[in-house]
């Protein structure tokens, strides 16, 4: 056991790589399988479809990843998203598109600030706080709309919705911009590093002179902002708002984050990993639809995939120790 041959070493490295990227490898294998067995999967139309599908929720998943890295969690993203869709459409119908855009983003930021204040200053548990604000905001949205969806026939909005480059609409473009921005912030700025430190060990971060309360606060503002932005992007596509939109968003975002490999305990992971999680979910469901699997059944598979990925991940981590 004292000497290792070079081929052995390369083999070891390959094994370590495969273990670390098990989810990615499985995803690629699945894509290859689909390309071979179902040519329609590989069509440009279907690819842009997958991209568009994952982009709206994907932006919120990035924000959720930041929150989880910082050691927090935000359930209210769902309700902020739903609120944003109805608020945006209704303001578009009254004050116009540009005020609607800014007012909706501001409302998302304000809701995030309330969450952030309660968690970082009043020191309440994030789960409880966001569970409460989730319910409150949902109630507010129902109250605002009387429960029914609202539509708009704003022509500019319809035109923006129709805009595309080779089938790629605005949403995936913003998704990619958000991805790059988040990667840069997390990996390359003091702000990002301090979020990792705060989530990695709150006490250490505090005793290092990091303004931990600020980071705990800002996490929720980021989620609020991104949820509102994603709500607007959905409106661009469907020109309608409803309190029921986004009801599975928060858990979807957490699922994508965890499948991607960001640990729920905080302090590590990243948004690039979350892209893998998003791809797993949207590719899988797109494929299931193409293969003719029923919608209800897909829910069940989503849960199984989540558990399976976490099991694989945990088993590999244990083995590596």
């Amino acid at each position, binding site marked *: 056991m004292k000497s290792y041959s070079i081929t052995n070493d390369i083999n070891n490295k390959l094994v370590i790589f495969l273990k670390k990227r098990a989810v990615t490898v499985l995803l690629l294998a699945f894509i290859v399988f689909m390309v071979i067995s179902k040519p329609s999967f590989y069509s440009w139309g279907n690819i842009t479809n997958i991209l568009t599908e994952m982009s709206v929720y994907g932006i919120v998943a990035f924000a959720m990843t930041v929150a989880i890295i910082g050691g927090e969690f935000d359930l209210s993203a769902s309700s902020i998203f739903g609120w944003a869709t109805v608020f945006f459409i209704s303001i578009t119908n009254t004050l116009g598109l540009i005020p609607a855009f800014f007012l909706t983003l501001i409302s998302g930021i304000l809701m995030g600030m309330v969450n952030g204040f309660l968690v970082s200053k009043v020191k309440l548990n994030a789960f409880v706080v966001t569970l409460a604000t989730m319910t409150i905001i949902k109630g507010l949205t129902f109250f605002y709309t009387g429960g029914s969806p609202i539509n708009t026939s704003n022509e500019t909005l319809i035109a923006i919705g129709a805009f595309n480059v080779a089938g790629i609409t605005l949403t995936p473009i913003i998704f990619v911009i958000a991805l790059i921005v988040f990667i840069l912030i997390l990996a390359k700025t003091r702000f990002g590093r*301090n979020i990792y430190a705060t989530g*990695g060990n709150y006490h250490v971060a505090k005793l*290092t002179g990091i303004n931990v309360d600020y980071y705990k606060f800002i996490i929720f503002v980021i989620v609020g902002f991104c949820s509102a932005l994603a709500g607007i992007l959905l409106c661009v596509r469907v020109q309608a708002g409803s309190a029921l939109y986004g009801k599975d968003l928060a858990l979807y975002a957490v699922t994508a984050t965890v499948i991607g490999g960001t640990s729920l305990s905080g*302090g590590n992971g990243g948004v690039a990993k979350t892209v893998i999680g998003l791809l797993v979910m949207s590719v899988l469901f797109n494929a299931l639809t193409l293969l003719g699997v029923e919608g209800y059944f897909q829910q069940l598979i989503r849960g199984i995939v989540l558990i399976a990925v976490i099991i694989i991940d945990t088993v590999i981590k244990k083995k590596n120790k």
Partner: protein
Amino acid sequence: MNEYVLEMKGITKTFPGVIALDNVSFGVKKGEVHALVGENGAGKSTLMKILNGVIKANSGEMYLDGTKTNISGVNDAQDKGLSIIFQEFNLINTLSVAENIFLGGLNRPKIVDWRNMRIKAQGLLKSLGFSFDVRRVVGELSTAEKQLVEIAKALSFNSKIIVMDEPTSSLTKSEEKMLFKIIKELKAKGVTIIYISHKLEEIFEICDTVTVLRDGKVIDVNPVSAITKDMIIEKMVGRTVDVEYPKRTILPGEKVMEVKNLYRTKILKNISFDLRKGEILGIAGLVGSGRTELAEAIFGAERFDKGNIKINGKVIKLRSTRDGKANSIGMVTEDRKETGLVLDFSVTNNITITNLNNVTSQRILNSRKEKDVAKRFIEELKIKTPSHKQEVVNLSGGNQQKVVLAKWLFSNADILILDEPTRGIDVGAKYEIYCLMNKLVAEGKSIIMISSELPEVLGMSDRILVMHEGEIKGELLGESASGEDVMQMIIN
């Protein structure tokens, strides 16, 4: 040949790239207290983990009472009369004393007989010479009491051999005495104890035999009566250590910090002192005397109700640790794992975190600059790590402590508060940290050092403040003070 109750023969254990144990043979006689010493990384923990069945040796044999045995895991070890009490206790804070003692008990019935359990727990504590309510929740107990519970737990398995890993590391002097008394009683009952400690004085107080490990090999086995402390140190580090506390020339400069009438209800009582440039100011006192609270107040980690702090003649505001850092104060906390390091972070990221602005260009973190900083400190402080990218969780205690120091040096702190700077680290690394402290004060920095190890305070400080019950009882000169002087001040 049956004089050995435990014998491990030819134990070898390799981890990828490292030989942790190299053909180690280790024998313990029945009823003795056997010390196992060595620097961090010498292989003590690995050997104990093999003994406990947590990890498997690559080769070697183990004998209990002369019969060859295999230990498959912790439960098996307990069945065979082996218990290990780790430095970090294995107790559940929310459960009662009795429940903890019998947790995982061998013949645990499906239905708990609470009365019987309490009586048995009470009996075990009594056999150790103690009696307190076994219905108390473990989280409320003092460290010493928790240790007692661990020992009682070990006895509940009818353990014949108990391993104690750094049992005194967080005990006060009087608690330590109590522990030694218990050890002697256990010994009288025929229980064999393997005693792991960095505090060599203790070994001479209670151990019969000492085995020295170095770099995974047994260097020496001797009766304690046939060996001196200096000989043990020499064998542990593989060279002669001339002086425990390196000397320096004292150049006390102008006042850099003036603390006046610091007061915090029930915790700190009108604390006043000065700190000079290039000085090491020691703070001695018992655990709970307010030492750590004082340090936290000076750093901005804890509030104070009255009083003020001047830095370079100006009163400063200390609302948070950020203010402390901004005023060039740094604090190495007493628990590096809980409050000193982000364990998942690399060496680099742990060091640069105090001063990220210094490693950015146009507000973007520059990984090359970060790497250079880390490499500089790794070299300067002789941090033993395979790479600057290594996660600190994988480093030994001494090297972790150096990373904590590096982090505050990188923040350009002029006043360093060191709370128990050498706790749980080995002789060699201790000496290096002392040398580093001397170098820092020679460069014009000032150090406030808190320590429970009296010899360390006496050996390293220019002046010593003696604290007791939140008050400064007096001041001594490090050069001339003795341990008795300090204790006198505390008692009076």
